[in-house]
């Protein structure tokens, strides 16, 4: 420990902690791995927040205290959540810490059986660790980053350990088990009580970037170096219960705002995002392959400010439907995403199609992107074409402004297409590019300084509307509708998907927000790096244990099938 203290003093700014993970206790299991021939080999350097644009800084290693994707991509590698969401937005059995989840006595209790995994210091992961996490959440109160998601902590009465590997979640009222499992338990990682001890908010908060709290982990990787605003270096955790990692060293470089393409071509990075326009660049650049990551499970939408009297027309569902109908999503997909995206007018994402209601699957939706229908809806709502082609009603013009963050080019382009579409149906849109901070501050301020703004929304688990479209929900500009409230409550409390489909179809009718198509993430990957296709899940979290390199004398673990 002296060495660490010395290093921290000598290099206060480089919080470099080299501790030898070949400590006596874990040399044996590592040797076993070697014998099995699948020894971890090679180093890969990848930029942070692959699968989520734009890159943001890594500021915390504590899984309970920060909801930013950049942090969670790292914490998910260190502390495995009970439920890991797979490519089809359902529970991924192999990577989840929970072996099984069974609802009991009329959906009032949820029994979770843990897999026999061990912490990186050899101590087994027990149900008591899950109870320890629950105690931390209660202590953190509002500081808990994922509060209200999946009913944790407000809908949960108590959590107690039944035996060494089983833990029960007792609810105040019957709740939909899928919703709790996918939305709640996916952000609920057991924490090492023996390593952390009884830490309250005043200890956890200041030590968010203290690597000593990230030494005892149960995930596939151990953190060896963390240089803020530079990179984090990880090595495989020999005692990880799941599929062992192929790489001997994974480096995550923090690339905020820079041009990674040049870094890729000079060999410093092994993969990077590319602008959609460069999607087919791999034909030109030799030595790289283009891989398309699926869209994140969520949607990009225009949120309206219902508490702003200057734009009362948003309260009229017909106007909202017209706004969606007027949107020529085909042009948007072709021009902005070069055909690599899907038209979507539903609050439930189309990809993966897991949660689509029968009506949505068959395609007969109240809104189909038909300008004629849009004009009819507007005329019905009393908005008649004025002198300059813009519709008017009681002397008020149908015009509003939309705020958008200027650092995502695709959103600016989508809005400019939407602007010309709306103009063709008689609605005047002016676009205000602003900083990201201004958008988030406006969303939660409930003030009338904005008419509409564009924001992205990633859904953790089931695309329910709770906390969003129900009255008092966040991030919807103050939308509230009695029928919507009852449907949302139903989708959360009753088991099965009927409640969800009813809410889904009513939302398509209400169009509380206008959905815009969302693109996938074109990646350019160096040929030496493999296993990239499945390593990002719909929420944008990573499973880099899949990654492997084919040079530096390493063998191809998959026999050459995976890309």
């Amino acid at each position, binding site marked *: 420990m002296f060495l660490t203290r010395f290093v921290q003093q000598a290099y206060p700014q480089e919080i470099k902690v080299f501790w030898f993970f070949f400590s006596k206790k874990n040399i044996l299991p590592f040797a076993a791995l070697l014998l099995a021939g699948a020894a971890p080999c090679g180093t890969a350097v990848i930029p942070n927040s692959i699968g989520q644009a734009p890159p943001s800084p890594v500021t915390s290693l504590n899984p309970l205290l920060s909801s930013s994707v950049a942090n969670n991509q790292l914490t998910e590698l260190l502390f495995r959540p009970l439920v890991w969401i797979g490519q089809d937005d359902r529970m991924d059995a192999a990577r989840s810490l929970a072996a099984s989840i069974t609802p009991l006595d009329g959906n009032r209790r949820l029994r979770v059986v843990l897999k026999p995994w061990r912490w990186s210091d050899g101590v087994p992961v027990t149900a008591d660790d899950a109870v320890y996490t629950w105690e931390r959440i209660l202590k953190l109160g509002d500081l808990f980053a994922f509060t209200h998601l999946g009913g944790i902590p407000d809908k949960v009465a108590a959590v107690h350990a039944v035996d060494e590997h089983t833990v029960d979640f007792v609810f105040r009222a019957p709740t939909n088990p899928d919703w709790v499992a996918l939305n709640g338990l996916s952000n609920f990682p057991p924490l090492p009580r023996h390593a952390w001890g009884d830490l309250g908010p005043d200890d956890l908060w200041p030590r968010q970037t203290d690597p000593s709290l990230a030494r005892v982990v149960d995930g596939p990787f151990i953190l060896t170096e963390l240089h803020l605003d530079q990179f984090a270096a990880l090595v495989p955790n020999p005692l990880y219960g799941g599929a062992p990692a192929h790489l001997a060293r994974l480096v995550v470089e923090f690339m905020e705002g820079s041009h990674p393409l040049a870094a890729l071509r000079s060999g410093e990075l092994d993969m990077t995002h590319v602008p959609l326009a460069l999607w087919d660049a791999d034909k030109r650049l030799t030595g790289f392959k283009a891989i398309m990551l699926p869209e994140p499970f969520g949607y990009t939408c225009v949120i309206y400010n219902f508490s702003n009297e200057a734009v009362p027309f948003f309260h009229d569902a017909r106007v909202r439907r017209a706004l969606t109908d007027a949107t020529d999503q085909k*042009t948007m997909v072709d021009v*902005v995403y070069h055909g690599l995206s899907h038209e979507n007018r539903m609050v439930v994402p189309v990809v993966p199609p897991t949660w689509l209601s029968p009506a949505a699957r068959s395609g007969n939706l109240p809104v189909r992107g038909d300008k004629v229908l849009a004009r009819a809806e507007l005329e019905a709502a009393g908005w008649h074409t004025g002198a300059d082609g813009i519709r008017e009603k009681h002397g008020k013009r149908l015009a509003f402004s939309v705020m958008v963050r200027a650092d995502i*080019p695709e959103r600016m382009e989508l809005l400019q*297409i939407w*602007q010309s579409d709306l103009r063709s149906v008689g609605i005047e849109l002016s676009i*205000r590019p*602003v900083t990201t901070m201004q958008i988030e501050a406006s969303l939660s301020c409930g003030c009338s300084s904005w008419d509409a703004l564009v924001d992205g929304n990633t859904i953790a688990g089931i695309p329910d509307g709770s906390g969003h479209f129900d009255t008092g929900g966040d991030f919807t500009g103050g939308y509230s509708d009695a029928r919507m409230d009852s449907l949302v409550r139903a989708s959360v409390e009753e088991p099965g998907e009927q409640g969800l489909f009813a809410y889904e179809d009513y939302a398509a009718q209400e169009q509380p927000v206008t959905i815009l198509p969302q693109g996938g993430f074109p990646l350019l990957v160096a040929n030496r790096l493999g296993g990239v296709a499945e390593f990002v899940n719909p929420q944008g979290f990573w499973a880099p244990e899949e990654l492997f390199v084919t040079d530096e004398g390493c063998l191809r673990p998959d026999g050459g099938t995976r890309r």
Partner: protein
Amino acid sequence: MPDILPAGTLHDAAILAEARPPAARVLLDLWRPLRALAALLCFSFLGPFAWRQDFSHIDARAVLSAPSWAHPLGTDVLGRDELARLMQGGATTLSVAAAAAAVAFVLGLTYGLCAGLGNAWLDRALMRLLDAVLALPSLVVLICFSALMQANDTAMALLIGLVAWPPLARLVRNEAAALRHRDFILSAQQLGAGPAYIAIHHICPAMGRLLAVNATFLVADAILSLTSLSFLGLAIQPPRTSWGQLLGEGVELLALHAWWLVVPPGLLITASLFAADSAGRALLFGRKSA
């Protein structure tokens, strides 16, 4: 955004006193930059009458197409005609730059005059405040004010003006402090002229050339700031744009070898800077300073 101090405080006595260039030579030097500036203004403001394309018309079929008869300078990421966007961008860039230069000029001049001609304590206080403002990275000011303003052209001009005035204030203060002891000022005071009269009728005209030179440099720097601002995400309201944004978008797609998105805006920015800069230098070296 490079703040480069213009060369206003240079003195220039010709080696052979008899061969000093008369005023006529100044017009000769000014002609080249004025001609370039006139060309740019025509291109930006009169161009749209000649080239009828609508700069905001989105054409899905012609995305990133190379220069052709339909689009002499090719099209951008949304298939809009690049030439039309350059013209509209020019109009915005030049008008915002001129407005920003005006804002910075007025602020800098009044601040400098108050500091230069006021009593010793006022001068000391104002100069210390100016040092603090100069030491403040312009970036912090930009970000803090950008959020406060409704993002339209006047706000953009105000923003750039607010950041650009301190160097001019320092220059005006030094020049005024030097001029106030000159004989022709003492002679005017002796004839009973009050401080305000002296500032307006004697100090400003005597600094005339320095102010003209720096006005042109302010325009040049404003054009540059507008370019850098778009990089920080404080952009002009779409679908309108500025040369800086076009250059930024073009540079992003450089790997596509879409030269028509990078070269024209780059050339236009360089040309406007050349025009503003050499106009300033012609004024500076034309006639002997006051």
